[in-house]
């Protein structure tokens, strides 16, 4: 057994903590200190408290709340309204357009909706849940090995519930490692332990320099950070999430805390060969708390999650240099085309091209055309635009009823448009 379970049994928590700080996990300790410090600094920067008006729509009744700007979160709003909302709300929707974490402070006057797993269409919540599970899988994978095994987290592809498993790609300093059934079981139990703690997902937007400082021990993440920052519209920041003492890069949003995860299994670890050497793809499947499925049906899901997940394989950011940058004329042209098409099929409503997710590798194809699956297969799977690109087909299915591969990144469209777009 390569796991630290004996180590866990032998030493008390305090001894473990001291040992960890001195040893390999010193980097994590430092990362946490920096995170806490930065969070404190940002909290102090709020300054004089201003009030904002939050209009809540939904059950049990529509109310208007006066909250604190930069301090109050959607979770605080739920606390004012009902215990039921506190317990079940996994994600918030601001102004019907922006998905917001439950524990992220609100920044301006807004309309608020709270989403949960049993909505009529819980697409976004499911996706956030899958993403959260990926992060937890990463947290588990980083902790589970002995001190002498060098583990570096790489990244995870954009979450897609339909693939049947959530994924994290990890570099493990072992040759030809194939986990036994017992080892998988231990990993599952560790993950369950993590979920039962009910740890909050803390979101923090930090500058690139600080992020680089935090992830200096992880060469993959250090590579990714400038790339991710360059993709963000504002430029110089990246978004970090902390759960327990694990910190990771992700755009989010995540569900409120880890207690939303109910039944949970780590099903397989596959060896994958990539540009960046040999990585291990950890896979798992989980259901939200309160979703009871009999063991046979859950067994079917587990069996499916054992197969290698078809999510995009990781590549180094430097190999992706040819990124199509649309000019404003092209954007307006596409917007116009979109509107004409929508009018032709008899849709009432408004549509505009918000973001381009067109990624073209070969220079000779640098014209606007339909993007086939192969074109974006080789892009790295973290960062802002990649997340959208890979979801394009999924979104299309969601909004347009699955007309494969024709639409250009109809991505940031608010869910309220779903009705008018349904054909």
């Amino acid at each position, binding site marked *: 057994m390569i796991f630290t379970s004996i180590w866990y049994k032998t030493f008390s928590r305090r001894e473990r903590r001291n040992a960890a700080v001195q040893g390999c996990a010193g980097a994590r300790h430092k990362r946490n200190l920096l995170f806490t410090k930065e969070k404190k600094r940002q909290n102090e920067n709020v300054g004089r408290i201003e009030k904002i008006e939050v209009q809540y729509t939904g059950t049990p009744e529509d109310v208007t709340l006066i909250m604190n700007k930069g301090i109050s979160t959607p979770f605080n709003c739920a606390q004012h309204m009902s215990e039921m909302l506190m317990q079940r709300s996994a994600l918030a929707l601001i102004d019907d357009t922006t998905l917001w974490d439950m524990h992220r402070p609100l920044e301006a006057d807004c309309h608020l909706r709270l989403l949960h797993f*049993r909505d009529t269409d819980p697409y976004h919540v499911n996706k956030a849940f899958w993403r959260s599970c990926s992060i937890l899988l990463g947290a588990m994978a980083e902790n589970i090995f002995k001190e002498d095994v060098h583990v570096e987290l790489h990244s995870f592809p954009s979450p897609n519930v*339909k693939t049947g498993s959530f994924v994290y790609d990890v570099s493990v300093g072992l040759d030809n490692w194939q986990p036994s059934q017992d080892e998988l079981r231990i990993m599952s139990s560790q993950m369950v332990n993590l979920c039962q703690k009910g740890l909050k997902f803390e979101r923090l937007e930090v500058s690139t320099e600080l992020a680089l400082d935090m992830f200096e021990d992880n060469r993959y993440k250090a590579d990714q950070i400038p790339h991710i920052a360059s993709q963000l519209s504002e430029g110089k920041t990246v978004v970090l999430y902390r759960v327990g003492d694990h910190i990771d890069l992700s755009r989010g949003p995540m569900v409120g805390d880890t207690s939303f995860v109910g039944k949970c299994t780590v099903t397989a670890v596959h060896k994958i060969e990539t540009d960046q050497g040999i990585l291990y793809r950890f896979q798992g499947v989980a259901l939200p708390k309160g979703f009871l499925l009999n063991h046979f*049906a859950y067994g079917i899901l587990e069996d499916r999650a054992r197969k290698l997940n078809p999510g995009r394989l990781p590549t180094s950011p430097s190999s992706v240099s040819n990124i199509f940058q649309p000019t404003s004329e092209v954007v307006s042209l596409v917007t116009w085309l979109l509107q004409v098409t929508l009018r032709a099929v008899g849709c009432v409503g408004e549509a505009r091209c918000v973001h381009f997710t067109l990624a073209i590798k070969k220079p000779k194809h640098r014209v606007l055309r339909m993007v086939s699956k192969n074109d974006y297969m080789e892009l790295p799977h973290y960062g802002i635009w990649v997340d959208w690109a890979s979801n394009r087909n999924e979104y299309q299915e969601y909004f347009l009823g699955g007309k494969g591969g024709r639409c250009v990144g109809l991505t940031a469209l608010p869910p309220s448009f779903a009705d008018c777009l349904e054909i």
Partner: protein
Amino acid sequence: MNQADVSKLMSRLRIKYKPVRRRLKNPEGAEGRLKKIRKTLTALLKHERIELNYNRADETRGYAERLISDAIRYGDCHRATMELADYWILEKQLIHKLFKVLVPRFDNCPVSYTRMYRAPRPCPGMYYKRAVLELRGNPYPPLLPDMTANRNLIHNVLLDEAQKEFRAQKYAEIAKKLEAADDNVIKSIDDGDEESSSAESSGEDETNVLGEAQVQQPGEKVVHPSQNMQ
């Protein structure tokens, strides 16, 4: 050896019940307990869904199950069953409901005839646990949320995708089998043609003819069963 099998003589309940009766505390003692149960049972048959204290609901449930199962077993021409129904049901028109409505409804029911749920209590409130007792197949909307109809819920998405994948896999297998069968048929036809042509060419090369005959046999085996089927 010669003793009767008791489980065959009595109706077998499909619910879990306590072997010791509850006394349902009241000033009239045992008789009062029966009176309480009769009232509750009558209300259950009348309204089909009632909310009450947990103990009383659980105690009544066994009696209701037994009464319905006897009614199904013996029918309305059985004196003992009719007396039983007359004793337990206070409002006599409900005896007609028992035999004419409930018996046909539960005739082929493989599970229990009643359902019981734990009901919420207002906090702070009474100490007693509350329960909802109902007959199956009642006309009211279901108490538990429907987790199957909405295919967008996460477990349904996962199961649907698993089903799709399974089907695709099965279709691929079937297609492969059909292709293999087709290949065999084509091969056997080709072999037959070649054999006839080689027979025409008066068997110049004997080894070649022998080889073809050997190849032909499995082809024939494939063709034969289908002929038998026809």
